[in-house]
């Protein structure tokens, strides 16, 4: 990266500047920062703005900042006005989130995501990493990690983990020996590798002697033609929400609420109860078990693949509730819909960090699809 523009705000820099005169942030050589994940691949025409400085003090060097979009800062998240170099809106004064507190990715026109701090939390411990081929419906990977609050540096850990997993998922999934069973087994092994890579990244960031080692949930979804494959650890979710048809929650949470529901408690009661957000499995140094639940499904209609953290589904857990919000947003543009769903969660109180990653499926891509049945298959590992 050339040293002539600020990596944080895009302002021009003096040749030997140590700090940006525009935003005041230190101007380091991003490549020199430790733990630098690989930059997004060239095919990922990414709007990913990187991690930037984090709001809360952390013990380690932040993950390197990637280049800002051309032309500098985004318009104000609140009123759309110009944002000054001090990150306050010049019109309404709203403090703009840091790049870690609010970032977006749009690797292709049919895939986009928003990762947002929400309102109540002081930092964004959610993370996502997306990739997609430019041909609509061909191939995409959507990874979301939800860093657990009250653990050290879980904001750093979740982002490093999400990016590490994305790298594992960059190559097409194996087809196996030809049978659905062997394919699922091979795919499960790839997801296990992705979870392990994410876990390794989380553990690598764990401060020495930490009493609260960073931990995170994991969910990933891969679209390959009409086949959707997904895996999760914890309570971040993948949904399939076809247009004008009942949607379905694909992943099964590793949570106390899920256990209570399986024992007969209603969803509402379980998810809003005192144990509603207790997860039973996670990534991190003290992870009990890293094997993801893996499943796949054929996408035979136009609709949305949604991968999200509980910051969204807290306010719309049932697929019908999500479908209603999608209908209310009235768009088939994934970036706009991701923003709308994030805005919905914030309007409901924004109690937790919110991540919304979406792939738009037009239902015309049956060619690349394996000929599997439409039913959902699942494996514990």
């Amino acid at each position, binding site marked *: 990266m050339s040293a002539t523009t600020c990596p944080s705000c895009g302002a021009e820099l003096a040749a030997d500047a140590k700090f940006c005169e525009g935003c005041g942030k230190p101007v380091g050589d991003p490549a020199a920062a430790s733990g630098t994940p690989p930059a997004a691949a060239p095919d990922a025409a990414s709007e990913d703005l990187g991690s930037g400085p984090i709001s809360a003090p952390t013990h380690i060097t932040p993950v390197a900042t990637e280049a800002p979009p051309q032309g500098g800062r985004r318009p104000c998240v609140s*009123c759309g006005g110009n944002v000054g170099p*001090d990150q*306050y*809106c010049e*019109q*309404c004064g*709203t403090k703009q989130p840091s790049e870690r507190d609010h970032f977006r990715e749009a690797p292709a026109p049919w895939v986009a995501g928003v990762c947002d701090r929400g*309102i*109540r939390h002081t930092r964004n411990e959610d993370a996502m990493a997306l990739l997609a081929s430019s041909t609509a419906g061909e191939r995409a990977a959507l990874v979301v990690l939800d860093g657990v609050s009250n653990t050290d540096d879980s904001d750093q850990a979740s982002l490093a983990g999400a990016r590490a997993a994305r790298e594992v998922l960059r190559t097409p999934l194996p087809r196996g020996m030809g049978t659905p069973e062997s394919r699922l087994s091979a795919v499960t092994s790839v997801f296990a590798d992705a979870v392990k890579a994410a876990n390794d990244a989380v553990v690598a960031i764990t401060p020495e002697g930490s009493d609260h080692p960073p931990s995170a949930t994991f969910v990933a979804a891969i679209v390959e033609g009409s086949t959707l494959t997904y895996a999760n650890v914890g309570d971040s979710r993948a949904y399939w929400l076809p247009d004008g048809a009942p949607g379905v929650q694909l992943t099964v949470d590793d949570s106390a609420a899920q256990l209570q529901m399986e024992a007969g408690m209603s969803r509402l009661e379980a998810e809003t109860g005192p144990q509603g957000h207790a997860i039973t499995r996670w990534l991190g140094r003290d992870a009990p078990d890293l094997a993801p639940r893996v499943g796949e499904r054929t996408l035979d209609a136009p609709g949305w693949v949604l991968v999200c953290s509980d910051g969204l589904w807290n306010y719309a857990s049932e697929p019908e509730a999500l479908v209603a919000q999608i209908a209310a947003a009235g768009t088939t543009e994934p970036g706009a819909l991701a923003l709308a769903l994030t805005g919905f969660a914030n309007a409901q109180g924004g109690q937790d960090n919110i991540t919304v990653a979406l792939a738009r499926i037009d239902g015309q891509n049956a060619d690349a699809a394996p000929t599997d049945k439409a039913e959902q298959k699942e494996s514990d590992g």
Partner: protein
Amino acid sequence: MAEFTAAVYQNEFLPDGGTDVNAIVTIACSGAGTAGQTGGGSAGEIIIVDTSGSMGPQTMAAAKQAAQAALAEIVDGTWFAIVAGSDRAMLAFPKVSSGPGMVQMDAESRSQASEAIGAFVGSGGTAISTWLDLAVTLFASVPEVNQRHAILLTDGENREGSNKLDAAIRNATGVFQCDCRGAGTDWQVAEIRRIAQALLGTVDIIPQPEQMQAQFQEMMRTAMSRGVAEAQLRVWTPQGAQVLFVRQVSPTVEDLTDRRTDVDALIGSYPTGAWSDESRDYHVAVRVAAKAIGQEQLAARVQLALGTDVVTQGLVKATWSGDSELTAKIDQQVAHYTGQTELAAMIQEGLAAKAAGDEATATTKLGRAVKLAAETGNDEATSKLRKVVDVDDEKEGTVRLKRTIDKADEMALDTASTKTTRIKK
């Protein structure tokens, strides 16, 4: 080249539904240089001396000496003029009747001006409006002078309709700055303060003729040290916000709220006059729409601008929080200056009530002033108050008006009422 810095003191945390944001912004200037010598234009000084018949021989002699002492402080190259004021204003120096009404200081003009001052004779009444009007005309006759300052000495009450003086003050506002001094005790503090406040200057009493020379010397020395000709305080507030007030609170309390001119829909500009190496504190209060807990926004950008160049700025923030330990605190600086502002009001209102014969109100207000002066550590106000009232209980603010008060002490309390102290660390 002058350098400016800004520091903001505030509690940015607002409770749920909270709307009012208070902050103290300290702006400091260093490297100001000398008036008219920094390449940004020329400086002009006008010395206005009351030469009405009320000036006794002793006072007149002292006034001449004082004017000459001030003259001695004016730096070579500075444009200047001497005005003798009675029921009309006379241009005592330079002796011209057309063209530029000011000349540049050098050895010759200095000695000629000194001679002109020496020839002052007291006669006639006091019409201060004519003095101000002449000063405006003189400054206008030398367009290259962009830093305009006058010192005005009077010894008596203005003998003309107050609307005449008001019109002259309006006419002079924004044209020049004016420091005002009253000799003896026959002048009206409120009247002269009105001039000084509008013209961004100071007001003080010179009770004894022998103190005059030192005061004039000091005043002119300060004026000459103001190398920054003119600066404006700019306050940006977000759309929909309301500026409740903008006050200078140190070194003196000056309410600037009504002196706003709009730069654009969101930015207001307030005059601050010329700057030397000094620091001033401003109290800015802004009302914003309440946001959700956890949200943060900018409530104001407080900037100092030289012309259109913003040279420093401080950010006033608002963050809504559900933590009452955070939101209940009042910033120490804000509390201090809120007290000092009330102190100034209590002194002025108390003395006004006393002058109107309302002893009960005067006692209450001056009692409150004694309490505030003690609480905010304003020792000067405390000692001046104690010359006017007997204090029974400083903490409670229980006082009695003194039976016999030196008029000069009462006026000194009045002129000094707006002086504030900085917070004691």
